[in-house]
């Protein structure tokens, strides 16, 4: 949609967009020649139609996040739906061998605890020293 100042025969330029609490949209345009201003006014349904396009009037300063439209407008979403992608944690050979000594029924829990502990502290590689550190926090039979 474009706006023309008929008097000047000049395309009008976007100035600003405002959305009221009741979702009435007001978009102001100006004629670059005579400085005359006009406003496009929409009702809430029309405002929502523009929003449904996944665009921001006047442009964006940062690119949209993945699934931005869905995440910001889907009313009921699963709790904790999106996990932030975790960096892969590497285990040293010694640490892996030590983990093997943990009773099998608690091993997955122990592994997860140590990896979470390492991630929280920014460690990428799990050594026996880190296992000791983590072990001080919880009794997991290591």
């Amino acid at each position, binding site marked *: 949609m474009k706006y023309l100042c008929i008097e000047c025969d000049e395309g009008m330029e976007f100035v600003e967009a405002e959305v009221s609490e009741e979702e009435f949209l007001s978009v102001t345009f100006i004629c670059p020649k005579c400085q005359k201003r006009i406003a496009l006014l929409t009702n809430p349904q029309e405002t929502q139609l523009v929003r449904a396009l996944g*665009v921001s009037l006047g442009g*964006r300063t940062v690119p949209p996040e*993945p699934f931005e439209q869905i995440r910001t407008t889907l009313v*009921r979403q699963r709790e904790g739906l999106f996990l932030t992608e975790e960096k892969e944690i590497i285990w040293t050979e010694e640490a892996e061998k030590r983990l093997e000594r943990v009773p099998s029924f608690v091993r997955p829990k122990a592994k997860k605890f140590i990896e979470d502990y390492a991630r929280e502290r920014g460690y990428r590689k799990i050594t026996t020293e880190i296992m000791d550190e983590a072990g001080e926090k919880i009794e997991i039979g290591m």
Partner: protein
Amino acid sequence: MPKKYKDIIGDGGSNIVGQVTQQIGRLRSRMEKVKHKVAVISGKGGVGKSVVTVNLASALASQEYTMGVLDADVNGPSVAKMMGVRGQRLKIGGNGVSPAVGFLNIKVMSMDLLLPKDETPVVWDAPTQRDAFVWRGTMEVSTLREFLSDTKWGELDFLIIDLPPSIEKFPNMAQLLPDLGGVVLVTIPSEVSHLVVKKSVTTVKELGIPVVGLIENMVGYLCLNCGKVGDLFKTVEEGEKMAEEMDIPYLGGIPFDPRISIASDKGVPFVLEYSDSPAGRAFIEIGGKIKGFLGE
């Protein structure tokens, strides 16, 4: 004579056109790594599109093809359940969202993965739900665009897209994916179904999208006691004849096997468990025909 639309360069700074162009660019860039995109449609509800989608994807995956399935039925998603990936959490990071991963490494994206409960409908945030018909269709297209462009599909041989029952959604998908490799149409052996599916065939043809062919689902009933296939519907017009009449390939018929619905409820693709059954063989054979159509 005042200036016309095309005489004014740009959109005066509202930048809507620019953002839509960027959205399309992101979509194209993601889809470049997907070799073949195939839509499964019908026009008629309840003919088994999702079952066909899941089992064709699984049949092809079992032949070492890298597969993705997009459940494009935003309001009635069922693919995640049939693929056994419900409850998987989605990882977000970098330039996209990692999809759920099912049997044979099949990547799945579906609205079902985002909803909290079985009974939760899709409701979009809006100042009022009154007159929502004005914008709901646009919202659904934006959702599908994000599913396509923001999901980390990676390199795929096939992306199979399960469309909702009504044909009205198909042109939107065709616009999002101008390089759609083809459309598979699903019907059942009933005159009522054929009546509706024929309209879908015409729509697809008029859009200039290649028709891979017609699948006739629930052709007969497989008796699990005696192994014989009996009539399930009183067939007035066979699918093969309909395909001939509409000048499209007939890909084959799939007999109704009660284990298909059991497998779907269990979240295990039927074709992986019963590849030697009549229905399992039919899925594999039809998968082969689709491959052939797309030059694989």
